[in-house]
Structure formats: structure tokens, C-alpha cells
């Protein structure tokens, strides 16, 4: 038997490969570099290269596939972009955040890059095996990152909770994969899809249905949808803020990436109705639960954790219709959320006290007079997260709600809007602190720590603010980008 030696289409996974290489370089260089921040910059270089490759792939016509396992179509490329941006911005925040807390270790950047690779794989996966692999690569790296601050119990606790619950959920996810595999005989998304469309009656298959439900559980866990969100507040709260920023954006985006591929390709078209209601209900309870619980928070970081749950709910609205416009909306939302949320966390890193887990809301009192520009940036992020125009967050909402309205599910949009109004309460709570209250001086003379803005954080803030504002006023480029991703 002649051994065939086909040339695998490595081009399709070039960005992923570059990031992997970068991760290895970081690990290797760690041995020789004293100032670990250099590793961060190396990571940035790697991510930049990946981004460039990513863009060059976007320009190609036929989407290259990596066998039947991965595809680098517009969809995955734009998600790659999201992951790369999220990783890059998080690294920028991390540089000073870690130094301040004496956590500057090379593994950090390597793990972050590996997590990024995992996310990228999830976005590009066309086979459940790759989905699972990506998921685990991402998750395991994140478990460790969450627990990265060894000086704090909270960080370790976050890592542990994330790990235990994550593994638990992974098991369900796997079981779901197994059942779907058993029912359809394949783990390839396309094949699963064609198996279903071959005979409509197949969908009644309880094994497949239960499999689907467990897949949903797995993704819901990753995107932090109620009632699988329990880990979220604690983990986001306890993890180092730079990691939280990355997780809240990247892991969520990765979860959505796979979720949508699975739902649209394997269970798409006529079968949409079978999961539509479930996802719709998930969407509503997720946004409502997240928002309402956020109202009660006294800690900004934790509040943003709940807020990220709520945002998962909004994004799910875009998933529900199962249409291309919905996908486009989700992509746009994820992209916009990346900037505004990481921006917000960047502000948190500046105000966070070293000895403390999280960031008390009182510390924000009078920020407008202490640091007008920082306060302004936070104001913009909060307003944008609320969904008030003319900021980028508004367009994300508009986009996903449009998809719901198109699918004759206006009630979803209504629920989303009502939730936006509720969310205004706590987002503005921060604005109120910053702009309307004087600098707090507690009775014990505990004065707010001096503000230290390092250059990378400033860069992060500038980038995120500019994107939030400019693309809020003129969202056209992003709209074009996302429609390119979906419609080619």
C-alpha cells in the first residue's frame, strides 16, 4: 500500500499555529528573560502576526479548510480577530497589573496564548472533536489563570470553583457529544446536519434530542447562561482582573462561536424550531437574572461579572432566530462587547487595591475630580454597556434585536430592551459614584489609593475608547466586516 503523503492545508490554521508558536516561544524565553514583561511584548508580537495572517486569509475567496476538522471561513476569521484583540488587550492590561502584584511570570502569557488558541479552535471547528479539544485547551488554561494570584485565597478559590464546575459541565457536554454521535454516527457538524435533513423524522430521536440538550448545557456553561452561570460571579470576582477581562470576553465569544456553528450547521434550517424556544427562554432568564442580581452588587468587579451574564442573554437573542442576520448580530455584539468590557476592566485594574479581592464601588466616588479622563472613559464604557447610543454597545443590541424582530419574535427584543433599562440602574450607579459623589474618605482614614496609569493601560483605554465612540457614531466598517464574515 503506497503511503500517501497529502499536503495538509496548514494555511487554514495558520493564525492558530502562529499563536501556538508564540506560546512556545514565550515558554522558552522565560528561561532567559529576567524582566518577564518582555514576554508579554513577545506575545503581543505573536498575536499581531496572527492577526495579520488572519486578515490575509479574509481576503481569500474560497474558505480553506483543514480536512474536515477546521474551516477558516469569514465566521471563524472574525472570531479569531475577537480572540486576538481580547488577548492583546488583556496582555496590555496585565503588564502593569501583574507587576504591581508581583505576579509577573512567563507562564501567564503562555497560558493566555494557549487559551486563545483554544478559543480559535472552537471558532474554526467543524467537528465536535475539535470543539471539545478547543474547549478544553481554553478551559484548562483559564482554570490556571483564574488561580494565578497565589497570594490571594480568592484567586485560588476562583480557580477551584471554575475547575470543579467546568469539569462537571464538560462531562455533560461530552455525554451530549456521545449521544449525538450515537444517534447520527458522526461527530462532523456537516454530516450530523445532513443526517438530520435527510429525514425530518429523525429529529424525534430522543437520543439525538437529549444529546442536543446536553450540548446546549455545555455551551451555556461556557457563555454563562442562567441557570448554568453559577460559577461566573465568583470566578470573575476572584480571578486576577486582567484574566477576568479576558475570560469575560474571550471564553464567552468562543462559547457562542461553537454554539452557533453547532446549532446552525447541525441543527439548522427546518430544525430551528426544535431548540428555538429553549434558547429564547435561556436568553430571557439569562439577561434578567444577570441584570437583577447585578443590581444588588457593591463590588464593581462582581457587578461586571453579573453584567457579563446579562450580556450573554442579549447575545443569545441573536442566536434564537437561527438566521444569518442573527449570526451577524452576534458577531457584531461580541466584537463590540470585547472593546467596551475590556475597557471597563482596564479601569478596574487601575482602581483595584492590591490587598483586596475586587473593587469596592465607594472607591469610584469622586473619580471625576481625581482623574477626569479615567472617569470619562469609564462613563463611556458604562453608557455603552447600557446600550445607550451613540456608542458601540447600542449597535450590538440593535443588531441582535433586529434579528429577533425579523423572526417575528419581537417579544424577545422587548425583553431585551426592558433589561437594558434595568441595567442602566447599576451601570449608572458607577457613573453616579464617579461624577456625583465626592471622594470618599472612610472613617478609618482609609483614603483611596493613588491612581497609577501605566502606558500599556493607557494604550488599552485609548484603543477601547476610540473604538467605543468612533464606531458608535459610525458603525459602518464593523457592520461591513460582520456581514462579510457571514455572507462572504
Amino acid at each position: 500500500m503506497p503511503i500517501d503523503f497529502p499536503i495538509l492545508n496548514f494555511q487554514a490554521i495558520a493564525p492558530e499555529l502562529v499563536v501556538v508558536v508564540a506560546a512556545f516561544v514565550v515558554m522558552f524565553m522565560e528561561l532567559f528573560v529576567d524582566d518577564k514583561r518582555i514576554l508579554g511584548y513577545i506575545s503581543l508580537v505573536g498575536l499581531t502576526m496572527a492577526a495579520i495572517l488572519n486578515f490575509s486569509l479574509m481576503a481569500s475567496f474560497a474558505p480553506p479548510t483543514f480536512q474536515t476538522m477546521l474551516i477558516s471561513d469569514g465566521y471563524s476569521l472574525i472570531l479569531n480577530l475577537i480572540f486576538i484583540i481580547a488577548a492583546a488587550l488583556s496582555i496590555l492590561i496585565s503588564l502593569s497589573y501583574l507587576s504591581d502584584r508581583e505576579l509577573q511570570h512567563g507562564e501567564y502569557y503562555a497560558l493566555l496564548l494557549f487559551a486563545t488558541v483554544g478559543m480559535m479552535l472552537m471558532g474554526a471547528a467543524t467537528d465536535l472533536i475539535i470543539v471539545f479539544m478547543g474547549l478544553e485547551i481554553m478551559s484548562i488554561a483559564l482554570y490556571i489563570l483564574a488561580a494565578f494570584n497565589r497570594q490571594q485565597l480568592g484567586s485560588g478559590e476562583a480557580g477551584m470553583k471554575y475547575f470543579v464546575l467546568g469539569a462537571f459541565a464538560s462531562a455533560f457536554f461530552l455525554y451530549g457529544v456521545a449521544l449525538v454521535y450515537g444517534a447520527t454516527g458522526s461527530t462532523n457538524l456537516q454530516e450530523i446536519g445532513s443526517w438530520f435533513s435527510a429525514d425530518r423524522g429523525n429529529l424525534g430521536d430522543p437520543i439525538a434530542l437529549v444529546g442536543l440538550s446536553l450540548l446546549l448545557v455545555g455551551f451555556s456553561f461556557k457563555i454563562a447562561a442562567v441557570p448554568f452561570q453559577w460559577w461566573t460571579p465568583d470566578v470573575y470576582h476572584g480571578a486576577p482582573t486582567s484574566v477576568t477581562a479576558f475570560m469575560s470576553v474571550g471564553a464567552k465569544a468562543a462559547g457562542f462561536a461553537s454554539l452557533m456553528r453547532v446549532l446552525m450547521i447541525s441543527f439548522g434550517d427546518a430544525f430551528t424550531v426544535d431548540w428555538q424556544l429553549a434558547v429564547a427562554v435561556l436568553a430571557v432568564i439569562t439577561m434578567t437574572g444577570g441584570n437583577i442580581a447585578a443590581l444588588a452588587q457593591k463590588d464593581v468587579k462582581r457587578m461586571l461579572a453579573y453584567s457579563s451574564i446579562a450580556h450573554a442573554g442579549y447575545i443569545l437573542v441573536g442566536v434564537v432566530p437561527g438566521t444569518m442576520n442573527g449570526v451577524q448580530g452576534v458577531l457584531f455584539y461580541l466584537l463590540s462587547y470585547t472593546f467596551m468590557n475590556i475597557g471597563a476592566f482596564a479601569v478596574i485594574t487601575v482602581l483595584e487595591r492590591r490587598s483586596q479581592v475586587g473593587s469596592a464601588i465607594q472607591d469610584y466616588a469622586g473619580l471625576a475630580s481625581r482623574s477626569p479622563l479615567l472617569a470619562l472613559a469609564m462613563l463611556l464604557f458604562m453608557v455603552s454597556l447600557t446600550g445607550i447610543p451613540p456608542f458601540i454597545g447600542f449597535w450590538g443590541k440593535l443588531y441582535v434585536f433586529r434579528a429577533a424582530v425579523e423572526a417575528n419574535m419581537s417579544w424577545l427584543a422587548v425583553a431585551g430592551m426592558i433589561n437594558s433599562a434595568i441595567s442602566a440602574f447599576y451601570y449608572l450607579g458607577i457613573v453616579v459614584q464617579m461624577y456625583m459623589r465626592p471622594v470618599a474618605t472612610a472613617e478609618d482614614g482609609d483614603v483611596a489609593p493613588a491612581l497609577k496609569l501605566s502606558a500599556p493601560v493607557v494604550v488599552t483605554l485609548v484603543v477601547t475608547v476610540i473604538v467605543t465612540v468612533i464606531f458608535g457614531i459610525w458603525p459602518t466598517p464593523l457592520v461591513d466586516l460582520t456581514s462579510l464574515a457571514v455572507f462572504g
Partner: protein
Amino acid sequence: MIGQVPLSYYLLLSAILFAIGAGGVLIRRNVIIVLMCVEMMMNAVNLTFIAFSRYLDSTTGQIFVFMIMAVAAVEVAVGLALLVELNRHKDSVNINDFNSLKG
């Protein structure tokens, strides 16, 4: 095909194993045992995969099992490392002793 155990038996067994694992995660408080229970759930999944693989005459399932085993190993490694780390802060392996984050 006489002599072949029907698929449903495997599925039932793996379901029971999975349920036992899940129940363990829910009931037990010792982090190590919880970890073991998660492993058990994964192995139940493995069993399902292999059974399906056999009956569908497809190798994909078996490949998947290898992946799962690798991941499970990694998870155990990470999990134990985390536990050790936590033990530095608090002399306990009871999962409910770690509840400083809440609300």
C-alpha cells in the same frame, strides 16, 4: 447476532455510571473525591462512545475516547495542583470551606 450484548445495556450501564459520578459530585464534599467522580462521569462517556463506535462500526468514537482520556489526565493534574495551592491558604480539602466569594 447471538452473543452480542445489546447496545442498550451499554448505554444503560454508562448512564448509571454517569449518574453515580454526577451524584458523587453533588453529594461529596472532599475535593479529591469530587475530582474522582468527575473522572467517573468522563469514563461513563467513554463507555458510551466505545459502545456506539462498536455498533456503528465507526472509529471516530474511539478516537474521541483517546482525546477524553488525555483531557481527563490533564484535568486531574490541574485539579490537584489547584488543591495543593489552596491548601497553602486554608488547611482543608472540604469544597465548602472555600466560600469567601459569594453574594
